């Protein structure tokens, strides 16, 4: 019970901090009237570094991965659950290095809307997570491009495209 409490707590803290970081970045860059792209790139970069660190910790006690699919399954299960308290709902792949992770109730969107309202704001709440996934994969030795797509909040799709050397 105690542990449960602690876990919940940090979750809220992460949520509020994530919120504030986004608002800070967008506010500070608005003044230079630069495009949103710069802000999302910055958030993505932050997520990348955090993902690198987190994945080191998350994979410390698990057996070595067999292959790429094994890694992706880990991202959808343990990694996602560790951060967002739930697993990815659906993982699809074309077996040519493209993976689509679908989360029907993405944690960072659930409080915002259940429908189309605020849709135009969704990208800024996904940038950090895109970076998180890319950073985690990169540290696991897989280079990728991660993008996100929303058609109805709070559901969300992350597309991971492996970049072969």
């Amino acid at each position, binding site marked *: 019970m105690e542990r449960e409490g602690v876990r919940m707590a940090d979750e809220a803290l992460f949520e509020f901090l994530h919120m504030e970081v986004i608002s800070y970045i967008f506010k500070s860059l608005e003044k230079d009237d630069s495009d949103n792209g710069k802000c999302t790139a910055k958030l993505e970069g932050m997520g990348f*570094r955090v993902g690198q*660190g987190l994945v*080191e910790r998350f*994979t*410390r006690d698990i*057996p*070595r991965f067999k292959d790429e699919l094994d890694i992706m399954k880990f991202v959808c299960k343990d990694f996602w659950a560790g951060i967002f308290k739930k697993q990815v709902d659906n993982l699809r792949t074309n077996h040519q290095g493209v993976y689509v992770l679908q989360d029907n109730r993405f944690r960072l969107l659930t409080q915002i809307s259940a429908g189309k309202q605020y849709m135009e704001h969704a990208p800024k709440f996904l940038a950090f997570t895109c970076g998180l996934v890319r950073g985690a994969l990169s*540290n696991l*030795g897989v280079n990728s491009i991660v993008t996100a797509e929303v058609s109805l909040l709070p559901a969300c799709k992350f597309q991971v495209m492996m970049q072969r050397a």
Partner: protein
Amino acid sequence: MAVCVAVITKENYPLYISNIPAANELKFHYTVHTSLDVVEEKLSAVGKTASDLRELYLGLLYPTEDYKVYGYVANTKVKFVIVIDSSNTSFRDNEIRSMFRKLHTAYTDVMCNPFYTPGDPIRSKTFDNVISSMMMQVC
């Protein structure tokens, strides 16, 4: 305990290497470097054979006349090498294992320091302390 501890990136360049006595640096670098081939060899077998190499600890890489070289590779492909003096025969596999665990944990903490840039040589007092605790008690 250990006479040399090294942390090597997945691209095979060293992030950290510490050895005693310090004068033997070149020799240890060579030993660690040589061990990487064995590491690669062991890793490339993963998935091909049914052996239990899914464990992060790779065990004894190779013995030389003076030393025993042990290896461990994290899921993130960062490699840890520990060199033990051969004359120290009392060492058990479990002790080596727990040294690697300690090393890996310390490395994870370094990765979690926001001021550390992944891929940079490790400069951390906390990490140094962990390593020196593993290197002491030699004599």
